[in-house]
């Protein structure tokens, strides 16, 4: 089957028609594309085509099963700067209100493994002057035209096929997507850290980051998100929160290996205000290997979406998620993983800890195409409930069209094991420490995949810190 034919396999399309995009968007987007760099017009137009086809999310959208669409729909309008008349937009422009991170803020986000290799984005805009990296990674923006023709064509195809309206908006409105490339046969000495700083000053910020792993290269990309304090100037932005929309596209060429470890923003009050939409799209060519780990503590509304295509024989993808939720925070993981060719392996492991009245969901589907024989795929979803008011939904799905495959999925939900707790306490650990240890142990299997000590330490500390006041309270219910 040709690559084009492969890509035209059914996406997980729903039957119902979606509402069209608003007239404001229909008018603003072509103008935005025309006014922007010509080098971005093809990708943006392709994404616009996809957006028109797919429409805006609505109640009952399959992609948003466990999410109330009304909670984020108001954030999907065109960014202020695309609107025709400035008088209609009293809000300050996002780019003006945004401030850059201070040196101190920047340093607080670095991890031991990547002290000298990091890229800084503020509200999705790449700042070369704040970034630092060696020659192992080639860093540019998409308009510079340094992404290879084949990779660029794949990117355009991905844009044209996008079924997630928010991700499509990200591809249209990202000012100038960041491109990170690792040349063929290159094995960088250490990982590259991508720092996303969000100012929360607009109703939405859009970022597109393209990672290209050259043939037989072997690399690691670490991602951290954080919110800059005190940068929210508009009262409206404070009241409604800001939607941070980050779309990462990873293109893995033949025989390449990429580890992608992503940490959400932690411990910030803005988590209770802001919405985080993160999409990770990956396309794996023959014999390539991907390990993705995402760990975060949710926000007012967090959606992590993974669209992974195993498009070359022998490719392997591992997708892992760890989530710790408190208060009224939400986190929704959404996975669409497609086995398009034979002899590929995929593994998914999602672990969520839900305290208080938080809500978590995992909607994960594995699609195996008709000719994708000898597929080996599994998916596991485990939820740990620390309170009776918390809610966790799991929706594992298998769609198998081949007949010689090994596929499995499973989902569990439960509380901490009292026998394990007593065991630890009987050795002198106070109940709170015992519960914390067991909770961390629950997600340790996922965190263990993030095997960079400095990065892992950030995750351990942040997740534990999030839970610190919740564990003794939860103990009473157990």
């Amino acid at each position, binding site marked *: 089957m040709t690559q084009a034919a492969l890509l035209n396999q059914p996406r997980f399309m729903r039957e119902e028609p979606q509402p069209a995009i608003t007239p404001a968007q229909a008018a603003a987007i072509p103008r935005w594309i025309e006014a922007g760099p010509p080098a971005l017009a093809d990708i943006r137009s392709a994404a616009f085509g996809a957006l028109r086809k797919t429409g805006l999310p609505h109640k009952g959208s399959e992609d948003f099963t466990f999410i109330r669409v009304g909670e984020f729909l108001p954030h999907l309008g065109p960014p202020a700067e695309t609107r025709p008349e400035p008088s209609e937009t009293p809000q300050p422009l996002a780019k003006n209100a945004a401030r850059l991170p201070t040196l101190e803020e920047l340093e607080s986000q670095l991890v031991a493994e990547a002290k000298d290799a990091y890229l800084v984005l503020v509200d999705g805009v790449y700042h070369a002057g704040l970034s630092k990296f060696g020659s192992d990674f080639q860093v540019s923006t998409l308009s510079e035209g340094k992404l290879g023709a084949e990779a660029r064509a794949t990117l355009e195809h991905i844009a044209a096929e996008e079924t997630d309206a928010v991700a499509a908006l990200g591809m249209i409105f990202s000012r100038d997507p960041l491109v990170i490339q690792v040349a063929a046969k290159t094995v960088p000495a250490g990982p590259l850290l991508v720092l996303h700083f969000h100012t929360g000053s607009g109703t939405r910020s859009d970022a597109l980051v393209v990672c290209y792993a050259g043939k037989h290269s072997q690399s690691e990309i670490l991602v951290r998100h954080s919110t800059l304090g005190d940068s929210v100037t508009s009262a409206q932005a404070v009241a409604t929160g800001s939607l941070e929309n980050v779309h990462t596209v990873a293109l893995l060429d033949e025989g390449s290996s990429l580890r992608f470890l992503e940490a959400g923003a932690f411990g910030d009050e803005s988590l209770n205000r802001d919405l985080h939409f993160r999409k990770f799209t990956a396309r794996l060519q023959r014999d390539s290997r991907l390990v993705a780990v995402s760990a975060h503590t949710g926000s007012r509304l967090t959606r992590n979406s993974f669209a992974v295509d195993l498009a070359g024989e022998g490719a392997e993808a591992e997708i892992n998620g760890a989530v710790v939720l408190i208060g009224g925070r939400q986190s929704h993981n959404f996975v669409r993983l497609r086995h398009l060719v034979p002899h590929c392996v995929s593994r998914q492991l999602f672990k969520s800890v839900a305290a208080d009245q938080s809500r978590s969901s995992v909607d994960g589907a594995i699609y195996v195409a008709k000719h994708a024989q000898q597929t080996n795929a599994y998916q596991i979803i485990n939820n740990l409930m620390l309170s009776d008011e918390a809610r966790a939904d799991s929706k594992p799905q298998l769609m198998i069209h081949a007949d010689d495959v090994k596929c499995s999925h499973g989902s569990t939900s439960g509380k901490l094991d009292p026998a*394990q707790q007593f065991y630890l306490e*009987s050795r002198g650990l106070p109940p709170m420490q015992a519960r914390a240890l067991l909770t961390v142990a629950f997600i340790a299997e996922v965190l263990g995949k993030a095997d960079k000590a400095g990065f892992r330490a950030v995750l351990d500390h942040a997740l534990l810190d999030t839970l610190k006041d919740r564990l003794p309270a939860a103990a009473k219910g157990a």
Partner: protein
Amino acid sequence: MTTQTYMLEVKDLEATIGEPGDLTQILKGIHLSVKPGEVHAIMGPNGSGKSTLSKVIAGHPDYHVSKGEVLFNGENILELEADQRSRKGIFLGFQYPVEIPGVNNAEFLRMAYNQRRKAEGKEEADPLDFEEILDAKMKALDMDDRYKDRAINEGFSGGEKKRNEILQMAVLDPALAILDETDSGLDVDALKIVAGGINRLRGPGKAIVLITHYQRLLDYVQPDVVHVLSGGKIIKTGGKELALEVEKQGYDWLVK
């Protein structure tokens, strides 16, 4: 008689398990007095209440004490939580140690060790110092380094789990160790190693309560006092010859 001469005093202890309205009484008036330096063995048929007694002393939340007292060095410990009792120097070796995937064995031991140190007003051990302590204890128990990297009891064989219990006891160095059928499921070689660990703890300031179904362990750890527990009560107390008697004749002659 002053309570100070005893390390552990159990007085007329009654304990139940279950929800209110559906309570089952398991301990029906236990009396037990253990002096520092002594090793007591508690034997008895299945279901006699041996494990329950050990868990009640250790503070298991599933059991409700309906009557009686448990004094440790003269202090009533029934009001204390399990972790507080542990930090005072009481150790329970479990009959069936649970597996705790994701919690590293050595890390956990260091946390437990440092909790104990903190309770005693001593400085906590840093990872390097602790490793030295741990290495010495592991060597004595013929345990290799991979125990350190494994999660608590995860994938351990029955014998490995029991050896890990003895390792924890050796690290925490408790004043009172209650070992619940630590000998069951061990082959002779493992039994000798475990018995060696128990004998090393033995000393003037220490007391050990061995709960066992078989007399075999007592060939390697000589008890000072042997009790037979049946139907939630201690029905006979004697010297080590009582254990041999029980092995020869079973429990029936005592129960009747």
